[in-house]
């Protein structure tokens, strides 16, 4: 099967700091892949290169047959990649519904279609009762959900989720895991997620990629990766819920 996302020997440095070194991996269509690693491992840097926020120093990023490294974030989104932010960035002054409408507009023929599409997504994510609230009034878990709703509204082929479960209680995490699994199973949505919550990673990801000090030290199924000596060593002493 050909890869949906193909990352080839990508490197990125910030002055003397090598944030990502020679990273290569693929994400196959309709799968859920998790990117894990201790803080500062380079996960978000890697994400930002895929999303078009950062340009790799070397290497290439291919997405469904097209090279996309160096694209602007809006061009990346137009190709079919939507992302959420680690620190939720809602349009605080707009209502929950209007936030999602903004996401839906670029792929809709007009306001009416965008409004309808946004309403469906809010329903699916149980945000419909809060549709008219200003986004600034949402709790943290709801803000994370709104990030996801906005990203889904762009009708992506690949979802990039940056710690979407951080700050959630266990019950909310379980709901989020069920929701992501449902989106993946029903719509065939491909998901690449950065996650610290190992329980969620184990439950969701078909493939886990472990990043440590900017380098990929292991990749494979969740079961293989947690027994990998190199992974155990880098996580030793970390509060990682392994």
């Amino acid at each position, binding site marked *: 099967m050909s890869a949906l996302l193909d990352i080839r020997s990508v490197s990125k440095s910030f002055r003397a700091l090598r944030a990502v070194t020679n990273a290569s991996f693929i994400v196959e269509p309709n799968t859920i892949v998790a990117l894990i690693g201790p803080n500062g491992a380079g996960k978000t840097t890697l994400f930002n290169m895929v999303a078009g926020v950062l340009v790799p120093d070397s290497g290439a990023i291919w997405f469904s047959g097209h090279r996309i490294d160096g694209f602007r974030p809006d061009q990346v989104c137009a190709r079919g990649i939507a992302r959420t932010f680690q620190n939720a960035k809602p*349009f605080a*002054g707009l209502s929950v519904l*209007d936030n999602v409408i903004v996401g839906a507009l*670029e792929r809709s023929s007009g306001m009416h279609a965008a409004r309808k599409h946004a309403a469906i997504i809010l329903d699916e994510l149980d945000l419909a009762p809060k549709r008219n609230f200003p986004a600034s009034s949402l709790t943290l878990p709801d803000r994370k959900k709104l990030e996801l709703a906005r990203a889904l*509204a762009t009708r992506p082929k690949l979802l990039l989720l940056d710690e979407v479960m951080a700050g959630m209680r266990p019950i909310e995490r379980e709901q989020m895991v069920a929701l992501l699994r449902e989106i993946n199973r029903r719509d065939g949505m491909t998901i690449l997620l950065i996650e610290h919550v190992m329980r969620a990673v184990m439950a969701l990801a078909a493939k886990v990629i472990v990043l440590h000090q900017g380098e990929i030290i292991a990749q494979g199924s969740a079961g293989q990766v947690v027994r990998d000596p190199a992974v155990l060593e880098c996580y030793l002493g970390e509060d990682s819920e392994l």
Partner: protein
Amino acid sequence: MTRRVIFLLAGLGAVLLGLPSFANNYVLSVATLFLFFAYAGQAWNIMMGFAGQLSLGHSLYLGIGGYAAAALYFHYGIAPWAGLWFSIVLCMLIGASMGALAFRYGVSGVYFTLLTIAFAEFTRIGFDHFDWVGGSGGMFLRVGQRDHVDLFNLRGTPAMFYYVILALAAAAFALSAWLLRSRAGYYWQAIRENEDAAQALGINTFRWKILAVVISAAMTALAGVFSAFYYNNLFPEQLFHINRSIEIILGPIIGGIGTLFGPILGAALLALLADGATELVGALGWEVPGVKQLIYGVVLFVVVTFLPHGVWPVLARKLKAIK
């Protein structure tokens, strides 16, 4: 829109339409000035209130718009109703160039604002030495007969000027209301609230920010044309001065940035305040230079301190509450 708001608008519209039939020329001149700032404030509000791009150099478009149409009239006898298209296109080009320069190189926030001031300032200095339009000595248009209405040449009675600026202010309101509910309005507000998130949702933020600047510049150019033919004299020191830019933005700030009614309400309150301060100073006999400005300043300070989002949001809540 609620019934109450429509009622309020209809009442306001009736008073404004009928005003020249019962008001004297002084009241009419105050009302014209109010509508002028209501119009220009709405133009500025599209760029700052909707799209979040703070311009402190809108005098640039006021001046260029005014000078362009006035110079065509002065030198070639081209009527302002034809010349205004030249003003509009010129200001759109200038706005687009400045926007492209700023947004391409990531000039944003305070630095973008400084750039808008710089553009207005160096244009002012340039016009001081631009002899074709009179340089610092100014340009004067033939006043013509005050009692004869010639709409095509923008020559006529105070009532004619009043109705022209009333029509402009009403059109600006309709345009703003339509834009806010359109794709552009949604994208601008998204950019205003969080540009990174907007771009991540596929919005070409560069293009939409330029559009906001261009529309705002075009509208302000018309304000410049009106001002040139209303006053019949143009001086770089007055038209391009940063004081003009600040006068334009005071209305929306007092009324409520980013709201539809804010710029209009703010302009009305400021007109009343300026007039009220003059009356008060006259009545109390405090004819000390600067007292008027002092009263004006203190009231502005109080409003901005206690109503940081402007008067309109508070008023809108009150209107809903008594429904």
